């Protein structure tokens, strides 16, 4: 099992350019998440999905869009990149049984994005 994989690992964009980050998991998890990590800020939730075809906003959703067309994939899009979006982006997935307790999240290796 590869677990959670992210593509690409590194990317440099110019202000105003667009790009899509791909997250894939092979654990048959229903739930998937996108976070960004900035120095001194910890991880902040951008968007998440509780199943194929569903998405929900997190703490910092502005400037990002997401899609979950297939259960195993969760895409994060930047339509018009800004320097403030320079960050490390992490994808995660989890199995949830629908009960009151959140489950362990499994993280990908991250994508380091620089916007000039």
């Amino acid at each position, binding site marked *: 099992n590869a677990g959670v994989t992210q593509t690409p690992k590194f990317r440099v964009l110019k202000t105003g350019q667009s790009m899509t980050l791909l997250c894939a998991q092979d654990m048959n998890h229903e739930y998937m*998440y996108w976070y960004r990590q900035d120095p001194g800020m*910890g991880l*902040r939730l951008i968007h998440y999905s509780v199943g194929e075809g569903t998405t929900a906003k997190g703490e910092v959703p502005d400037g990002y869009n997401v899609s979950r067309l297939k259960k195993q994939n969760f895409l994060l899009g930047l339509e018009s990149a800004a320097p403030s979006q320079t960050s490390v982006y992490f994808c995660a997935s989890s199995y949830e049984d629908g009960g009151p307790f959140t489950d362990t999240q499994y993280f990908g290796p991250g994508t380091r994005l620089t916007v000039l």
Partner: protein
Amino acid sequence: SQQGEEDPQALSIQEGENATMNCSYKTSINNLQWYRQNSGRGLVHLILIRSNEREKHSGRLRVTLDTSKKSSSLLITASRAADTASYFCATDERRPALIFGKGTTLSVSS
């Protein structure tokens, strides 16, 4: 807003010593989790403690939870150089999503 806040922000110890990190949170939770992040890598789950548990062990790790004080602590006993990493607590304020704190950076020197 971020839920968990770790303390201290940074901790430097010698191999063999114990390391204690604390996490405080603001609202009621069902469970709290601790994760480790090695430099430049993704987060790895360490331990999960439910709100009806007070203490949990996993190898050299010991986690306590005090829901009345809204706080948790992570103790790593007999630290090794390989324990050098950042440690994050995460709460389920926004279930099913986790809200992470800013982390404690642990440096263990030999």
